[in-house]
């Protein structure tokens, strides 16, 4: 009984370690400035929206939010379409040297993204895409990992169903849309959610490829806000931080079983 009690204490301690910083963020964002700069700290805020309006005044957060949304939605859509079409082709169609081509797709996972920053910046500059949505989105829509996950999943589907669709005269695209995708819903949701989270959180590429406030995304805007406001405006900065985090926290709460499922599947099979 005593060990059980200790185990519960440890469990609560662990929860506190991970919730503490998030509570610190949330409470500071809603505290009045005088409450933030007092010691000992105030654990409970006198609620105010002041910090949010200050953040909005310090940086165009509505514009950051719009940019992040556009990039996340379009980037995710294009990347997932790429993954699904490629995975379908590799799972169901014949082609010479298919195996080598598949290794070429998977091999992209061996290339560390950070290593590609400078050449990709130069390529995007050559294309005239610096500080544009195309420059922000296109370099990231190639898909290796999601393609792999989707293909592995397609191969587990019973062939009778796709064969039946073919016998009924359905073409490949129709089979994909009407038969294969509906049978792959959970995997598709997993891929969409994981991709969207990555796109939203992407930091170094938008930092490099944009150079005006009107094209910045939320995470990059946050860095600029922090550098400009310094240590004197933690309330404003925490309000901005909350704006960056809130949408992903929400998606996580709604879709966490898909995220967790996809990540553990990738680890245990990969």
């Amino acid at each position, binding site marked *: 009984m005593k060990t*059980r009690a200790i*185990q519960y204490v*440890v*469990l609560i301690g*662990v*929860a506190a370690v*991970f919730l*503490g*910083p998030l509570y*610190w*963020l949330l409470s*500071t964002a809603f505290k009045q400035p005088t409450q933030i700069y007092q010691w000992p*700290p105030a654990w409970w805020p006198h609620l105010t929206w002041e910090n949010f309006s200050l953040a909005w005044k310090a940086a165009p957060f509505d514009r950051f939010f719009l940019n992040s949304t556009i990039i996340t939605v379009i980037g995710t859509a294009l990347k997932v379409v*790429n993954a699904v*079409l*490629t995975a379908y*082709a590799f799972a169901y*169609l*014949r*082609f010479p040297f298919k195996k080598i081509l598949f290794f*070429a*797709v998977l091999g*992209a996972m*061996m290339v*560390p993204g*950070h*290593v*590609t*920053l*400078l*050449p*990709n*910046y*130069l390529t995007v500059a050559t294309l005239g895409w610096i500080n544009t949505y195309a420059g922000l989105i296109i*370099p990231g*829509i*190639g898909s290796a990992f999601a*393609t792999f996950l989707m293909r592995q999943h397609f191969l587990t589907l019973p062939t009778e169903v796709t064969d039946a669709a073919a016998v009924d005269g359905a073409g*490949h695209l129709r089979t994909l849309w009407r038969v294969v995708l509906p049978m792959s819903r959970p995997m598709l949701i997993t891929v969409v959610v994981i991709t969207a989270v990555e796109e939203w*959180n992407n*930091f*170094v590429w938008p930092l490099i490829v944009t150079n005006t406030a009107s094209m910045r995304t*939320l995470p990059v805007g*946050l*860095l600029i806000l*922090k550098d400009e406001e310094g*240590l004197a405006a*933690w309330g404003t*900065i*925490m309000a*901005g*931080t909350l704006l960056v*985090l809130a949408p*992903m926290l929400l998606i996580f709460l709604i879709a*966490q079983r898909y995220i*967790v499922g996809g*990540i*553990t599947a990738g*680890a*245990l099979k990969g």
Partner: protein
Amino acid sequence: MTVVDLPARTHPDERTIADGNDQRKRRRRREYGLFALLVAPNLLVIAVFAYWPIIYNAFLSLTDWNMIAARPKFVGLANYGRTLTDPAFHKTLWITVVFTGLIVVGSLVIGLALAFLFNLPLKGRGAVRTIAFAPHILSGAAVATIWAFIFDPGYGLMRALIEPFGAEPPDWMNSSDWALPGLVIVYLWKNVGFAALIYLAGLQSLPKELDEAAAIDGASTWTRFRSIKLPLLAPITFFLLITTVIGTFQAFDVIAVMTGGGPGDATTTLSWSIYNEGFQAFNAGRAATLSIIMFVILLVVTTVQARVMERRVHYR
């Protein structure tokens, strides 16, 4: 409606066979065409933005270029010679290794401990597991900003935790002794939940018979952990090791927000110095050289570890 019956020039059987061949060929050609159509966009993006950069880096690393001059100046292997003998680069590499080592060991040890905790029959363990995993999917820049405030020596949460013990809170991010440990804490906070989740999935997939048999034979909990569970979890440890090394080598957002490689060069890792050389000093040759070095290191790490593990990991 009129039906025109053409005189058959060939035997009906032969005709159908010939038609069938034609049709099959046509169908195969259409299948090839469709395959190419479906795969081409993805392969094109991968070729241009994942493979071409390696070749482009290799070329740029042989040049001296400020990205303004019309064309890069060829300098042979000078960049490699300078970089590999540069004491600043040695320090960068050392910082990267220490930083990666601490995070890898920390993630694996704490992650495994958490996995065992979450595997106990405790109420609310699922919720705590979710809470511990959540930081993994949050923006690194945002997490770094929260922690920058937590580490604030004047009004941060850390001061409230340290002061009761009678210690003076350090000025974390402005101290060359504390900045790197501070970054390690942030990365661990963000990523141990991921390691815990993977280990937990591994623990739950272990065969129960072995452990039960050992328990009946009187093996202690520690022996069962060391001689049964840990070896069986080796493939998962291997996976986490590789992914954590690769991820940590490229760690950027938290460093950019919290220290900018400083103070001085106290947190200048390889990933930060690639950014610094390329996008702050505008020295394409040096940045490309560092990129190639990072690429080679990570390639070697993966291959060597894969070889070693092939022999030693207990695959089921």
